[in-house]
């Protein structure tokens, strides 16, 4: 089993990724594989909302599960991906690109240090598959 893990991103234990440079957030390749076919994405925050680390920013529904997406760090929502509602399948096909969900203005960069880097996340995925 192998999953795409991008070197420049940071990762959470709940399988979200965040781009430390621009604050974009989504769910990982491992997450989309676990969920199976995604049928619906609902972004539950709006532009301008302030979120704390751990607040729910979106819900992803697949044929077999519904999963919450949590903010990896605290910040202000500066953009949301409107197109996901119409093309939820990109979560499966392009989890790190077109399937970005929200973009945050990061309030406290130190919170990024609490997250996993690519290697740590890769290991974390492998541990769970055993």
């Amino acid at each position, binding site marked *: 089993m192998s999953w795409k893990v991008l070197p420049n991103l940071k990762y959470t234990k709940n399988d979200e990724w965040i781009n430390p440079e621009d604050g974009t957030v989504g769910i990982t390749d491992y997450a989309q594989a676990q969920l199976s076919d995604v049928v619906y994405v609902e972004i539950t925050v709006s532009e301008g909302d302030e979120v704390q680390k751990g607040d729910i920013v979106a819900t992803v529904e697949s044929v*077999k*599960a519904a999963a*919450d997406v949590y903010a990896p760090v605290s910040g202000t929502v500066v953009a949301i991906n409107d197109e996901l509602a119409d093309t939820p399948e990109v979560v499966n096909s392009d989890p790190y690109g077109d399937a970005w969900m929200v973009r945050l203005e990061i309030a406290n960069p130190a919170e990024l240090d609490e997250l996993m880097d690519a290697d740590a996340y890769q290991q974390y995925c492998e541990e769970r598959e055993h």
Partner: protein
Amino acid sequence: MYTPHTPEERRAMLEAIGVQRIEDLFSDVPAKYRYPKMNLPPAMTEMEVAEEMQGLADANLTVKDFVSFLGAGAYHHYVPAVVDHILRRGEFYTAYTPYQPEVSQGTLHAIFEFQSLMCALTGMEVANASMYDGATAVAEAVNMAYHVFRGKRPKAVLSAALHPQSLATVHTYYDASDREIVVPHADDPTADPMRLLDAVDERTSLVMVQYPDFFGRVYDFTALAEAVHAKGALFGVAVNPLALGLLKPPGDMGADIVTGEGQPLGIPLSFGGPYLGIFTTRKKYVRKMAGRIVGETVDTRGQRAYVLTLTAREQHIRRARATSNICTNNALMALAATVYLGLLGKDGLRRVAELNYHKAHYAAQRLAALEGYELAFPDTPFFNEFTLKTPLPVAEINRRLLDYGIFGGYDLSQDFPSLDRHMLVAVTEMNTKDEIDLLAAALDEIAREAAA
């Protein structure tokens, strides 16, 4: 009736699982609780049971024995024989939940037709596979509106002219929660519906009314719907679906959620149930709608097929994140309504609705002409039910009416102290002109005797 296995079958089963005696299967139960003394009477034969049950049933006076003018949410309508004929087919009667589409196409297809019929009747875009009854459907409407706004608008404004049992059910659901259930002007339940707006603000997710309302009155809610939308809230309407055979559907008035009690559609009175909850909404809110939904698709051979769909809404998938705990529907009653509507068709349904309308209006005219009686709302349109002011307490009149072989209308003072001496009279296609004339004569006589 209980038809147990034979001793041979029992022995074979025990052998298959490697157990000596049935008693051994209870060994985990502490000895002193294993065989409690149950004071059951001795067993009866099927014949004796049938006789006892019949005796109990015969103790009731029903609409088969008496002429009825009682409605208030459950009505005496004709149930065509074909309804029962289809319902009692084993494939429908004993079918379980259609989770496996490959073995449930009949059930799923029937539910799909039901959903389609409910949308056609209400003027709405999507329907679920049904709920328990009209009251829980109202409670689910409150729930759905709450989730549409993701909890940011915790208040629901409900008309005092909704069926009291619907309001009671809403309170049962939400009194222990942090939702705000507001019934404005509860001390003046027959107030103009536009006055509901007094209680609507930016914290309101839903304003809900009934059509016809509990007092029988019919309003065009278009203006109210517009005003509610202007405040950013959703507008819900609880209907009598039979009335929609004649009246403008709430979908055309701008409703966002339309619920209903489907009992008038081919379901007998049955001492209170089972009845049928109808739930419809606009397509844009479908993911917030609770309950089962049947969808149409194609199978691997390109044949049209039906499946349960949008299942990620439901609580067996969402679990703690589900918006409602419902995980069932009322398939057999939904089938009854589907058969009833399929049999009557659009024209037949209109004819039944017209019969109801005209007979009720004839009755209203006759009763209003009696001395001591008058219509409570003479200027407001009604369908098949109207509120009559009476010269005596309704309870007393109804007691006297039994002597004439008549069940009188609903005593509104039971629920509304301010409506003492107000009777809710229902007239359906089952009431003949002679019966209505008998009611008029009886009410007249009762009033005269009391005055004397």
